[in-house]
């Protein structure tokens, strides 16, 4: 909306804006920003993720005001928050379940990117920044989980930091260095707390870069074809602000259900037992969003190789823009890739199931097959399918497709495919 006649207020704003053009920037990037008019609800997940980041930071800061980062006091300080601090239970459950929600949103956002080719030229750097955000999130979540100093906190920290001992020659020294001692202990807890507080702000900065990269070329869309003019887009406000707000309301319903009615469903009951360095829980299991990587780690009989593949499964994501050789972005027009994509989804869920269960019998077999398929999918299927597949003809333009009221695939003339880098 243009400035109203609120005289003095708008004069002050204009004075500031002339010197620090934040209003002009907001107007450009949030109000007028031309967004493809055919975006589906799968495009809500980016803004939802951004909102969750803010929610996690705010709940985290208020929790930090009450938490004590010392091995002897941490568990009790969390219980004090749950019992004695006004609304403390809500802060804690919101932060705890918020982490799960954050990962769920980001994973859906990531898979949306994989399906619609949002990582393809010219958005490679946008994708890479996203993978960096994911890695920072994993680090933050891992360290955050240690802070309540429950059994699972302590032993997950022990197992995962011990992974570094797989590094030849210097491995054990690195682990001792990470621990600040001879086992996970108070020095470890303190440094994890400091880093857990710091990293979300690093994530915030990378998200800012992610948004700048996004706005350079604008959002991708379900058809995967570039916009050709104003007829293909709508201003972000009010069309997509209201759509994002609606999506937010629906998401908050799901989030609230967990926080208020099933706050411990996604967690491990073992973490309500105070950490005991002398007793390992029967089954050490990470939180659900880390299960696939855990499954890959355990599926490989060789310790070092398992570590390499587990970390590799994430670092592989950096290469996706170059592994996929298809000239077409969106899976809507890729008849083979379309099905193979769902194989990856099933594979990742299977890996999750494998990670959640003790490594015996069928679980081991499925784990090995699923791990193998994961790497085959990216390293073999991506390049091969891109080359061999015959894509369906692309619509002439976004506007044309929208007017047709469908995918636009019935249009005879193919639009120009996406240029390869």
């Amino acid at each position, binding site marked *: 909306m243009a400035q109203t006649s609120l005289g003095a207020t708008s004069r002050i704003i204009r004075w500031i804006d002339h010197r620090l053009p934040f209003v002009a920037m907001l107007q450009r990037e949030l109000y007028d920003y031309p967004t493809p008019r055919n975006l589906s609800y799968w495009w809500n997940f980016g803004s939802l993720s951004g909102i969750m980041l803010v929610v996690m930071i*705010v709940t985290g800061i*208020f929790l930090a*005001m*009450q938490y004590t980062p010392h091995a002897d006091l941490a568990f009790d300080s969390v219980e*004090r928050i749950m*019992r*004695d*601090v*006004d*609304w*403390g239970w*809500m*802060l804690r459950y919101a932060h705890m379940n918020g982490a799960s929600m954050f990962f769920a949103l980001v994973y859906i956002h990531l898979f949306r990117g994989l399906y619609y080719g949002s990582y393809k030229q010219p958005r490679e750097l946008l994708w890479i920044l996203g993978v960096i955000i994911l890695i920072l999130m994993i680090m933050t979540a891992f360290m955050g989980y240690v802070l309540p100093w429950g059994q699972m906190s302590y032993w997950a920290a022990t197992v995962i930091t011990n992974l570094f001992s797989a590094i030849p020659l210097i491995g054990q020294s690195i682990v001792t260095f990470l621990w600040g001692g001879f086992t996970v202990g108070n020095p470890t807890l303190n440094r994890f707390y400091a880093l857990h507080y710091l990293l979300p702000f690093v994530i915030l900065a990378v998200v800012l870069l992610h948004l700048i990269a996004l706005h350079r070329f604008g959002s991708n869309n379900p058809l995967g074809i570039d916009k050709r003019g104003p007829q293909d887009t709508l201003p972000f406000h*009010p069309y997509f602000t*209201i759509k994002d*707000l609606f999506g937010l309301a629906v998401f908050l319903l799901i989030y609230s259900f967990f926080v208020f009615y099933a706050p411990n469903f996604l967690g491990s009951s073992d973490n309500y037992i105070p950490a005991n360095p002398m007793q390992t829980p029967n089954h050490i299991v990470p939180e659900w969003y880390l299960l696939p990587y855990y499954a890959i780690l355990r599926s490989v009989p060789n310790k070092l190789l398992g570590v390499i593949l587990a970390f590799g499964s994430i670092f592989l994501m950096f290469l996706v823009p170059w592994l996929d050789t298809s000239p077409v972005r969106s899976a809507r027009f890729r008849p083979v890739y379309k099905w193979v994509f769902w194989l990856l989804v099933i594979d990742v869920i299977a890996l999750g199931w494998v990670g959640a269960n003790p490594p015996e019998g069928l679980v081991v077999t499925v784990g090995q097959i699923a791990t193998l398929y994961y790497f085959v999918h990216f390293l073999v299927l991506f390049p091969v399918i891109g080359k061999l597949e015959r894509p369906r003809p692309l619509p002439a333009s976004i506007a044309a497709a929208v007017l047709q009221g469908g995918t636009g695939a019935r249009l005879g003339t193919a639009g120009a495919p996406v240029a390869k880098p």
Partner: protein
Amino acid sequence: MADLTQQNVSGAHAEETRRDFLILTATAVGAVGVAATIWPFIASLNPARDTLALATTEVDLAPVQVGQRLTVAWRGKPVFIDHRTPEEIKTAEDVNISDLRDPQPDSARVKKPEWLVIIGVCTHLGCIPLGQKTGDDRGPYGGWFCPCHGSIYDTSGRIRQGPAPANLVVPPYEFTGDTMIKIG
């Protein structure tokens, strides 16, 4: 796209009004939601229940003999309890109020004249005055003496000499029995 010139003008206007109303409602509902969300965060900074549980202290006065003084902790501060002798009470009551820097009659500072309950924190810069232990210097008025900057209090805990601006504070308390008080 509908050609507006062909549409009934009042129909178009009604559409806009409905749309504005919807947007207004959405904004109002959103604002209420934001406010309702912010409130618990602010409230979490209030003293927590464990702190509040220590907000009141009960003291049994029976073991305190006439002329004896007792120090108890209340909300992290010392509270001086003085079982005053009749002489101390008389001295406190006989003082000319207009002579005081912080005028206050003794009767306004006690519930039962033989029991003086005051917070043992000097009103100058917060030191704890001497006078509670036998052998302590009580200053020339028989009350309390603050060693930090020389503030001197009388048998009613009122400031008589030295830099302190106000009398020693009387905390909220009540007698829950003949010899039981609840502070706070």
